[in-house]
C-alpha cells in the first residue's frame, strides 16, 4: 500500500502577542477567499481538517486554522510554568486580528465553534469591517457553569481523561465512531488547565448577552449554525441570539452536537456549503 498525502500544509509562525513572543502553529489548504477557522476550548485546529481535505471548499477558499497559544502544536509563551492560563475576550480578539493581519488575509470569512462561536459574536459586534462574513457554530451569548470547573485541573483527576469525559455527551448520537473518538482524543491531549482557562472566557469573561442585539449584519453578514444535541450551547440559546440580531441567518443541524466540523464532517458540510455559496455570491 502506497502512502498518500493530504493537501494540508503546516507552518510555525513567530509573532508577538500581548507584548510577548509566541510560536503559533498554522495549517492551510486551498486557494481563494480566506476562511479562518477557530477551534473549540481545550482542543486545536485539527478539528477543521475535514474542511481542508474537501475539494468543494478548497477549490475556491484558502482554509486556515491556527492552534491558539497553549493549544495543539502552539507553545505557551516563555514563563508559562509559573502562570495560570486564563483566556479573556480582549486577548482572544487581539490574537485573531493579529494573526489574520500577519497572514495578510484580505477580508476573510471567519468560522468559529463554541468559544470560537462566541468570539465570532464579539468580532461581529466590534470588528465587522475586518471580515467578509462571520459564521458562528454553537454560538450562544453566555453559558452558566454547570459543573465545578476546578475538576478540570487538579492533581487527583486526570485532566485529559476528565476533559474528554465531560464533553463526550456533546457529540451527537449519529457521529461516526472514528470521528467521535478523534474529536475526543484532541481533548485528551490538551495541556494541564488549558480547557479550564478557555472556559474562563466561555462561562465568565465572554458574556455578551447585554450587547449581542447591537450587532449590525449590514456591516458584516452573520450565519449561526448549531447542532440539535448540544446541551452546552442549546439550539434554543442559538435561536435566542438569532432572534435578537436582525438579518442573521440561523440553521439548527439535526442529529449533530457541539463539534459539527469534526464529529460528523459529511453531514456538517451539507449545511456549510450553501452558506459559503451564499457568501460567495454576495
Amino acid at each position, binding site marked *: 500500500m502506497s502512502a498518500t498525502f493530504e493537501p494540508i500544509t503546516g507552518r510555525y509562525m513567530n509573532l508577538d502577542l500581548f507584548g510577548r513572543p509566541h510560536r503559533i502553529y498554522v495549517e492551510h489548504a486551498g486557494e481563494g477567499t480566506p476562511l479562518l477557522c477557530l477551534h473549540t476550548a481545550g482542543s486545536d485546529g485539527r478539528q477543521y481538517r475535514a474542511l481542508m481535505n474537501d475539494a468543494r471548499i478548497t477549490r475556491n477558499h484558502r482554509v486556515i486554522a491556527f492552534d491558539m497559544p497553549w493549544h495543539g502544536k502552539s507553545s505557551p509563551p516563555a514563563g508559562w510554568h509559573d502562570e495560570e492560563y486564563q483566556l479573556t475576550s480582549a486577548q482572544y480578539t487581539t490574537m485573531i486580528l493579529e494573526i489574520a493581519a500577519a497572514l495578510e488575509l484580505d477580508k476573510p470569512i471567519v468560522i468559529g465553534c463554541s468559544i470560537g462561536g462566541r468570539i465570532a459574536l464579539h468580532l461581529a459586534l466590534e470588528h465587522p469591517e475586518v471580515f467578509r462574513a462571520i459564521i458562528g457554530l454553537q454560538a450562544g451569548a453566555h453559558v452558566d457553569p454547570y459543573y465545578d470547573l476546578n475538576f478540570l485541573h487538579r492533581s487527583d483527576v486526570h485532566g485529559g481523561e*476528565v476533559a474528554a469525559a*465531560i464533553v*463526550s*455527551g456533546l457529540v451527537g448520537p449519529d457521529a461516526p465512531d472514528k470521528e467521535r473518538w478523534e474529536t475526543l482524543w484532541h481533548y485528551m491531549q490538551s495541556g494541564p488547565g488549558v480547557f479550564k482557562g478557555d472556559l474562563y472566557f466561555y462561562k465568565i469573561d465572554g458574556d455578551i448577552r447585554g450587547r449581542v442585539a447591537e450587532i449590525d449584519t449590514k456591516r458584516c453578514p452573520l450565519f449561526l449554525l448549531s447542532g440539535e444535541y448540544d446541551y452546552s450551547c*442549546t439550539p434554543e440559546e442559538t435561536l435566542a441570539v438569532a432572534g435578537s440580531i436582525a438579518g442573521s441567518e440561523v440553521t439548527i443541524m439535526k442529529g449533530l452536537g457541539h463539534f459539527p466540523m469534526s464529529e460528523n464532517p459529511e453531514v456538517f458540510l451539507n449545511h456549510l456549503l450553501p452558506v459559503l455559496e451564499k457568501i460567495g455570491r454576495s
Partner: protein
Amino acid sequence: MIEVLQQRVNGDEGLVRRGRYLTTTFLLEVGPTAWLISIFEGRVVSVTRGPFVMPSSAFALRASEEEWAKFWSRKPPPGSNDLMALIKRRVLKAEGNLQIFMANLRYFKEALAKLRSEGAAS
C-alpha cells in the same frame, strides 16, 4: 432492571480494564427507589435495592423515574443523552465525594448507559 448492571458492566472487558483502579460504593436513586452499587477494581460486585436505614456511599446520583427512563431509552432525546446533560438541566443531582465520580467520569457514563434498552448505543 438495575440488577443487570452487574452482568453488563462485567461483561465489557474494556470498561472493566479502564476501571481497574476504581473501588467504591455509590448510591443510585431512581425516584423513590434507592440502589447501592459496589465496584471493586472495575467490576460491579453487588447491586442492592433499598430502602436502607443508613446507606454508606462515596457519592449519590439522584433523578426522577421519568428522567432516568428518557436517559435509558433506546435513542435518548437531546438533553437526556448524557449524565452531564441531565446535570446541566438540573434534573440529576450528583452529591457527595465527586472526586471519585469525576476522576472516573467516562467509566460511570458508560456503565450507567449499559442500562439502556438492549441494542441501544452505549
